[in-house]
């Protein structure tokens, strides 16, 4: 079975630009979450979507937005990029909405903002 797939793998953007990251969950998983991982730190929660509805939002500015499509894939959008947005963006899918559902992470998108 295919795991969580994310695209692109790497991305270089300049300050002020916007970026769209994509994620396809494991087949059968209806929940998708996005995490930001800065080098040397643990992943930080950005969003969770379940059945196309936002179910949770972390402490991130409104420049960050996301959506989930009918096939449960998801996009994370970041506008007006700042240098501090440089990080590994991880998408994770889980079977259900509950906190008892372990997260299955993709390989991530490495975003560099110059």
């Amino acid at each position, binding site marked *: 079975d295919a795991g969580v797939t994310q695209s692109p793998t790497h991305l270089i953007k300049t300050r002020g630009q916007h970026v769209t990251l994509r994620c396809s969950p494991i087949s059968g998983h209806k929940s998708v979450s996005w995490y930001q991982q800065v080098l040397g730190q643990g*992943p930080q929660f950005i969003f*969770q979507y379940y059945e196309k509805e936002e179910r949770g939002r972390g402490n991130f500015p409104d420049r960050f937005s996301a959506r989930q499509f009918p096939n449960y894939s998801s996009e994370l959008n970041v506008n007006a990029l700042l240098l501090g947005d440089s990080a590994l963006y*991880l998408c994770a899918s889980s079977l259900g*909405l509950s906190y008892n559902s372990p997260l299955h992470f993709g*390989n991530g998108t490495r975003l560099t903002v110059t």
Partner: protein
Amino acid sequence: GQQVMQIPQYQHVQEGEDFTTYCNSSTTLSNIQWYKQRPGGHPVFLIQLVKSGEVKKQKRLTFQFGEAKKNSSLHITATQTTDVGTYFCAGPGRETSGSRLTFGEGTQLTVNP
């Protein structure tokens, strides 16, 4: 907000030595999860502990959940080079629904052969 802290931040061991990482939460947790991230990789789920005082073993790995459900530990017996990576603990937020997790900073383990 909820905080999850891990110590130590780094641990260097000789192959064959034991290793322990500790995790403490500022709030009582309904469960705690452990993940391993290899260098250049993504976090991979290891285990989930739910009950107070629970102990689970996976081969050379032993996981414990504290009686008060605010702390946890991961112990690796006789480390091997394949154990290299960063180990994260993570706990759910206060929300009654959703799988939002708060991760600790991680303990980076290096093993000298």
